[in-house]
């Protein structure tokens, strides 16, 4: 009781004690995304926030944070409810420090979980959703090894649900090294970001409304994922 509690987050959690489903979206904004891809991504993220906001229960339970990686790794939006999240406009620039981005996203997630625990608000298994169109440029760094370890351990302990999505000509073999073995990366059909984010919305809605235990029923990905033959 005598611990200090940070002001802003505590107000949100006391005012809305619903169990939370935190979802950190990790987005590739490296220079290879420039042009149509980054514009489609911007529209997709805007639509994602809007669709989540429209669902009254999801708006109370889902919390979204956005980490981007390009010329640097940035926390573009810290965890908040969909309705109070203002989607930033992304511009494509720089390299692909994917490992560092995943490590950063993981730590943002950990600190939000700590806030939930302090406020006595329970939470469902957190989601990390990564979108990339390239090859990570930091595979030789400590970050990349850490990222793989964090994702794999998190999945094994059921403390994390990780989804990797490959855009355009992303190297899926490298991405799959990061993805949990039982849930390899999916390849986005063209630039169907709209369908992809609608799927994410629907999945988060069902995850937050029905408290996913061991079995999670996710909607079909056929609207946006292409099947590799």
């Amino acid at each position, binding site marked *: 009781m005598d611990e200090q509690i940070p*002001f802003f987050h505590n107000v949100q959690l*006391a*005012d809305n004690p619903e*169990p939370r489903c935190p979802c950190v979206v990790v987005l590739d904004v490296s220079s290879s995304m420039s042009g149509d891809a980054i514009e489609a991504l911007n529209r997709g993220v805007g639509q994602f926030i809007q669709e989540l906001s429209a669902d009254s*229960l999801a708006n*109370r339970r889902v919390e979204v944070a956005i980490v981007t990686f390009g010329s640097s790794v940035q926390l573009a939006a810290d965890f908040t409810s969909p309705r109070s999240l203002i989607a930033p406009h992304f511009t494509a620039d720089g390299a692909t420090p994917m490992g560092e981005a995943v490590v950063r996203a993981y730590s943002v997630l950990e600190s939000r979980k700590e806030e939930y625990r*302090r406020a*006595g608000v329970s939470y*469902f298994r957190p989601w990390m959703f990564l979108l990339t169109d390239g090859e990570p440029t930091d595979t030789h760094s400590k970050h990349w090894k850490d990222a793989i370890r964090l994702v794999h351990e998190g999945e094994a302990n059921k403390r994390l649900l990780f989804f990797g999505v490959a855009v355009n000509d992303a190297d899926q073999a490298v991405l799959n090294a990061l993805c949990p073995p039982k849930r390899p990366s999916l390849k986005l059909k063209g630039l169907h970001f709209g369908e992809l984010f609608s799927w994410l919305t629907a999945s988060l809605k069902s995850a937050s409304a029905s408290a996913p235990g061991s079995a999670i029923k996710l909607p079909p990905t056929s609207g946006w994922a292409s099947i590799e033959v």
Partner: protein
Amino acid sequence: MPVFDETGRAWDLGPKIAAGGEGVVHQLVHSPEYCAKVYHAAPLSAFKQAKLRTLCGLPKELRETLALPLSLIFSQKSREQAIGVILPFVKGHDIFELYNPQSRREHFQKADFAFLVETARNLSIAFKVLHENGIVMGDVNEQNIKVRPDGTLSLIDCDSFQIDRYGQRYHCNVGTPLWTPPELQGVSLAELERTANHDAFGLAQLIFLLLFAGRYPFAGKPLTSEPLPPEAAIAKFAFAFDPTPQERLLEPPPTAPPFKSLPPALRNLFLRAFRRGSQLHGARPSPSEWVTELTALAGSLRQCAASSAHLHWKGSEGCPWCNILQTARVELFPAPPGALPKREDSLGLLNDWAPRLLAVSFEPLQFGLPSATLQTAAVNALELELKSWMPGFLRQIPFVQRNLNASHLVELKTRLSQASQTLGHFSNQASALYLQNFAHAQPFLKSAHETAAKIKNIGSPNSKAIAQVLSDHREQALQRHLERQLLYRAQVAGLGQSRLATLQSYHVITAWDVTESTLMALPGFGMTLTRKILQWRRLHEQNFHRSYRPPTSVQNDPSFTAAAQREAAELITYGKLLLERIREAQAAYGSSFETLQAAYHNAYARWSALETRIKQLSAMP
């Protein structure tokens, strides 16, 4: 697309308004009070049809509590293939939008703690009716109970309920982990017998959420580092508010209302509902037990001293809502605009207040006379001064003395005139000090007198309270008028069936529900259409204003008394503030005046000593 009910009547299936796991809900064209659910698994099996027919045939009285289907629907007039049911369209909000403080401020602005207790009681009554009719809800959750603005409610999604009729059991095969009792966590629900004791878990959790500011009974500060997702906490009977748990896994959340903020009898019901042992047959409190204790609670609420919107059990140590406001900086029950004032500020007090405000004034202070001690001191000081003018032995010589007296007299008179000037100077300073302080206080004085006049005016025909009642009356009449204007009859160009369905799914049904911000937030409503719909609303508003006639007498209207009390409370609060400010100004003036008066007294004592001495000398030969 036309569909047909059991009697062969055709219904026009409108666009989708909601989609769920089992089916899709459609609007019925020109029948906004009904909707139709079409199942994914159509045509329906004979067994499913039998269950739905049983639900349709339940006694009419149950329809007040349950959104029961009215008829099966078929794709052809020959009624061979059943595809779904016709259901009443239930207006209201999901129950979580009432117990969640954020949503409550949005959808139930006037709901105070008494309203929550009343809703919890109505909920218990609904379950009592359900169980007495041999029905088990099964999938109790935050989204299948709709609460209306008056605190009554309907249970929806009745097609999943477990029901026994004519020796046949129709199971409830679904559940939501967050709402599943510990004994059923992780158990396959298909074909499983659901009992009233299972429902009693969901009922208790809903009541807990309503009474404890949206806090879940199984969420708290974890005492181990292991993650404890909600369903795992339920499975372990980890009731966070249990004062003496068998195994403590969770502490109560730091900014939740304390468990002791409710009467012992209610606390005991919660312990029976959530503790280990509650899974045994009939162990959890029955709906009737809740009705009894919630009725008792409703009768023992009191208002807290700080806010008329803070109602709590009268046996609670302090006001839980004030504590949360202090610790978490969250106002769980904000006073709605136009809330009734607290009882102590009722109309009766007004008789005291007008005279008190009128009597207040800000008068100049007057210098008094210095004390005798000060006088003596001044005389002694003067004597010493005189002695210093001439050595003692010279004064013994009569000639010298006479001359001395004459010269002393001249000198003393000069000093007296100086002393008089000083006194005059102090008097001027005193006037300036008064004017300066009066300038500070004057606006408060003016307001105090105006407030007194307003207080005397309460209840007279040109008072604010009456104006308020008239404006409320107009506003309410406008609302009633607009609520009768249905959007589906609006004939706004571009407002087709699918957009009407979108509107209906957001509860925008009448002209009253139409606002710019609501429309702008809806998907697929552009500027042009929004403007047209708003124009349609304005047209009806104009029609209303043309034909509206205000009531002729309002004095006996209860809302007048309320408005008058509200105004009285406002004026008294304001009056108190004014008196406070005036007192402060008086105190500041008083303390500056004291300093000035001390200096004046010294000067006066000297002047008086000089004058006395001059008289003495003048009287000498």
